[in-house]
């Protein structure tokens, strides 16, 4: 099928139409789960996916296939000499991203059909609303991907912020969900405001927000020096907020309050991917200069290590995955920072698939446990890994797909994750070889790789291996064990997406050779038709000599296997005990997430409260006190001088005051006569004034 503007428009607007239908029609009339409601959303994502499959994928290897829609960019906001032009653009990056976004979103939609049916044993009352939000989310992401300009990109960006707020707070009866939604919204807002400032800088200096024009403007030196650094840092700050990088990462783990498919959507296909996408695009158009890139690399590398270390001690299955996402995003940022654009996007793609698989797998587990616990009237936490164990036999399909995805995220060979992670690590190693002073960047990456393998396998062992409920604590432990024995595999509506996503977590789709980057690198590193020639220099480095690749492979696989081995010794064979570590100071620090959440709570939430209290008290004490004191002073002074001033007061002052009062009263009485309340009287005066004015003016101009 021809890659035409109409096709793109349908791809873009189908989810929006689905959203509108759901919100305006279905939501009003259909309460509770009706698959009919979900079908609209499934169509809204399925149609784009199908169109992408038949219309975009066949054009994947045409390097210059750039399409502008409309042919002449639409002048959207026209302010006379200034105008914002908007349009859609398809280049190689967009093509692969479109495929990923539509496919993953479709799988998540499908999964949700079953997953969202029940809430606490009752039919979900806001079933269609949920799907409406999902569709809007998808629309926002597609808009962001297809935008050829930073303005509509920003609109999609903000729409996603809104959707994340709505979806994280979907169970809005829960206080924790409300808080998490607000936290996510406000934290990302910090980044967004900075991003907006960055956009303003770009617009003010380049005069356009369309990517090709920005790229040309940067080439031509319309923005350079510290201003360029500043713009880059502001733009990166937006990505930091959206992609949950240190120090704005705290919202993402809390976002687990939303339904699990939402987590999958946020973590895999949409929200956090947007940040990396933006950073990669900025790298492409040259808005990140050397200084910014260094900041990006360090923030990314540090986040990768930092988040991985927190994930070591989490017990909530979704939180472990959440921190793993933060860590993996750190990898991507690291890749952007060392200029390895291809690897960043490659990891973004593979990560989307295996992370969606992991989240949906955990969702499948949670769903099954929830059902089992509900049947036994237990109030145990269905997300706590200590309440799991031994699910391997009970849920074989979920286990299998989950295991594949875990291998992928750990970077074990024969998986997609291995390919992409290897690319990133090789890039960072090559960078370090060039700039030995930045050795830490590579160290961050490799240590985080080992940690990733460790905590992911810890998760797998706790959840699927061992005896059912072996780690359960508390009074209900026995009942939990009983309930676990009755857990059943989820229905096909949930397992089919898992299988599809697990397939994409294998190496075979990405590259036939299990240790080379494959076609995706070719597609992504191909010259984008719209970029000016010189902009491709960013691609130049990031691919060291071949020996780097070999070393990376040996090192990363070794470290990953080490992580798996250690995890197995700790949790599978129980050769080593975690007792001592768990009681140590370091574990406590990790469990407190390095105290960052507490710090933010103290620094921003608590202090804002305190500030308002202080200002209230200041008003009450100081200002009121000053006023009252002055009054006391005056009164006191008056008392003390009464005997002197008495006479003067009585005759002179009182006389004057009373005289003025009398005069005013007389005047008031006089003017009061004018205030008749008769409208027409007033109007007469008005018109007389008009006449007088007319005469005055004509006299003045004579």
């Amino acid at each position, binding site marked *: 099928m*021809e890659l*035409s*503007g*109409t*096709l793109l*428009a349908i791809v873009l607007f189908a989810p929006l139409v689905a959203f509108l*239908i759901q919100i305006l*029609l*279905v939501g*009003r*009339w*259909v*309460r509770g789960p*009706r698959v009919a409601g979900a079908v*609209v959303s499934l169509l809204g994502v399925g149609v784009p996916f199908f169109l992408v499959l038949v219309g975009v994928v066949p054009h994947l290897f045409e390097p210059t296939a750039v399409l502008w829609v*409309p*042919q002449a960019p*639409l002048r959207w906001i026209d302010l006379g000499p200034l105008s914002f032009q908007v349009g859609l653009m398809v280049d190689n990056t967009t093509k692969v991203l479109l495929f990923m976004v539509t496919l993953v979103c479709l799988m998540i939609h499908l999964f949700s059909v079953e997953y969202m049916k029940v809430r606490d044993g009752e039919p979900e009352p806001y079933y269609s609303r949920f799907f409406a939000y999902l569709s809007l989310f998808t629309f926002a992401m597609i808009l962001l991907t297809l935008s050829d300009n930073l303005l509509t990109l920003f609109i999609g960006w903000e729409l996603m912020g809104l959707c994340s707020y709505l979806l994280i707070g979907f169970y809005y009866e829960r206080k924790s969900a409300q808080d998490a939604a607000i936290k996510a919204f406000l934290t990302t807002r910090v980044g967004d405001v900075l991003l907006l400032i960055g956009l303003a800088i770009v617009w003010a200096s380049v005069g356009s927000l369309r990517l090709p024009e920005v790229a040309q403007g940067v080439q031509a030196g319309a923005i350079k020096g510290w201003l360029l650094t500043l713009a880059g840092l502001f733009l990166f700050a937006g990505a930091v907020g959206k992609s949950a990088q240190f120090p704005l990462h705290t919202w993402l783990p809390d976002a687990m309050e939303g339904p699990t498919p939402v987590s999958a959507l946020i973590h895999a296909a949409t929200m956090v991917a947007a940040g990396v996408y933006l950073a990669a695009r900025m790298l492409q158009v040259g808005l990140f200069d050397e200084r910014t890139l260094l900041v990006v690399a360090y923030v990314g590398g540090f986040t990768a290590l930092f988040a991985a270390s927190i994930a070591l001690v989490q017990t909530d299955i979704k939180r472990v995955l959440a921190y793993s996402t933060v860590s993996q995003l750190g990898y991507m940022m690291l890749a952007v920072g060392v200029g390895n654009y291809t690897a960043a996007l490659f990891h973004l793609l593979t990560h989307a698939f295996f992370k969606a698989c992991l989240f949906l797998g955990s969702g499948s587990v949670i769903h099954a446990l929830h059902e089992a616990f509900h049947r036994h009237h237990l109030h145990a936490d269905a997300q706590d890994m200590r309440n799991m164990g031994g699910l391997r036999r009970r849920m074989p399909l979920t286990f299998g797909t989950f295991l594949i995805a875990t291998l992928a995220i750990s970077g074990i060979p024969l998986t997609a994750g291995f390919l992409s992670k290897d690319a990133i690590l090789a890039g960072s190693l090559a960078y370090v070889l060039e700039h030995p002073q930045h050795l830490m960047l590579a160290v961050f990456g490799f240590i985080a790789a080992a940690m990733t393998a460790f905590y992911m396998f810890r998760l797998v062992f706790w959840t699927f291996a061992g005896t059912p409920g072996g780690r359960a604590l508390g009074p209900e432990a026995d009942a939990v064990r009983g309930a676990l024995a009755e857990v059943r595999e989820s229905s096909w509506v949930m397992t089919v997406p898992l299988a599809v996503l697990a397939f994409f977590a294998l190496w075979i789709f990405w590259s036939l050779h299990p240790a080379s980057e494959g076609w995706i690198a070719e597609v992504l590193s191909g010259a984008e038709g719209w970029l000016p020639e010189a902009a491709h220099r960013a691609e130049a480095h990031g691919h060291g000599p071949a020996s780097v690749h070999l070393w990376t492979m040996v090192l990363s696989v070794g470290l990953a296997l080490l992580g798996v081995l250690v995890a197995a010794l700790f949790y599978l064979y129980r050769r080593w005990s975690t007792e001592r570590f768990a009681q140590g100071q370091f574990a406590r620090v990790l469990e407190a997430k390095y105290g960052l959440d507490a710090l933010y709570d103290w620094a921003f939430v608590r202090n804002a409260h305190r500030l308002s209290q202080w200002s209230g008290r200041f008003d009450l004490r100081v200002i009121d006190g000053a006023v009252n004191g002055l009054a006391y002073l005056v009164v006191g002074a008056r008392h003390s001088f009464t005997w002197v001033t008495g006479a003067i007061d009585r005759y002179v002052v009182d006389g004057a005051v009373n005289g003025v009062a009398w005069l005013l009263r007389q005047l008031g009485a006089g003017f009061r006569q004018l205030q008749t309340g008769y409208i027409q009287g007033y109007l007469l005066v008005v018109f007389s004034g008009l006449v007088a004015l007319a005469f005055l003016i004509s006299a003045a101009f004579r």
Partner: protein
Amino acid sequence: MLFRFAPYLVFGASVAVASVVPPFRSSLIGNYDLGLFLYLAISSLVVLGIIMAGWASNSKYSLFGAMRAAAQIVSYEIPLGLAVLVVVLATGTLNPQRVVYDQAGGVHHWLIFRQPFLFISAFLYYISAIAEVNRTPFDLPEAESEIVAGFHTEYSGIRFAYFFMAEYTNMVIVSAIATTLFLGGWSGPIPGWDLLPGVVWFALKTVLLVFVMMWLRWTLPRVRVDQLMALCWKYFLPIGLVNVLGTGILELLAQEGVGLTIGGWRIGPNGIAWVVVPVLVALLGVYAFSGGPQPRPAAAPRRP
């Protein structure tokens, strides 16, 4: 004096509308740049005549009839205007003659068949126009079972005849305008087949529409006042607005040259709309009639 003058105003306004209808090709009548706009303006004058008649009759029934007529005509002017606006958007002109030129070249060029929003608009226009001219089933202002004969209760002789003539003139003219706007005016249904002169085609179409109006009168009972108003404000107005929006979007898309090419056949936005809009309407219908509005919990008693 108002009593005497009213029938002439009503009749005069009705006939004046005829000046915007072009009955044949390159006629001087109806070749006026503001024609459609003028039609809306003049047709709103009828209200004043009716109020004048009802008030000046100094009779309770007449006044009731006049007020009903005024409310009805003023209300239905809005969907009527929106329907005409859709035509203006699609053809890019207010000149009725040019509107007809735009529909030349066979039945598939007639505006009613050009795209789905115009199709809906045609019906919107026709029904609103029936209400506008106070025909059954919207003949509340002269409902003989309730208010004798409405605003012309007290009239007789030639003045009554003027009112009556105004009504029938209105029918014909409204049908003629519908023909002009949606059914291709004087142009024949098959291109290049000029069997009949334009005037005859025009008259045929107009008479057909008038016939449908009469048919409706024989068939349908009168609606209630609240039904009448609900139909206008709750259904026609939103539908009309959606029509305007949809047509605007389609025109924009056409300007941008949007289209799908499938096997050598190029399908423009209008063609796509012919597929998409009926599907959406059908979906809407399915939801409206299958689920239907769920019973809502009783509203909390309002505080006094």
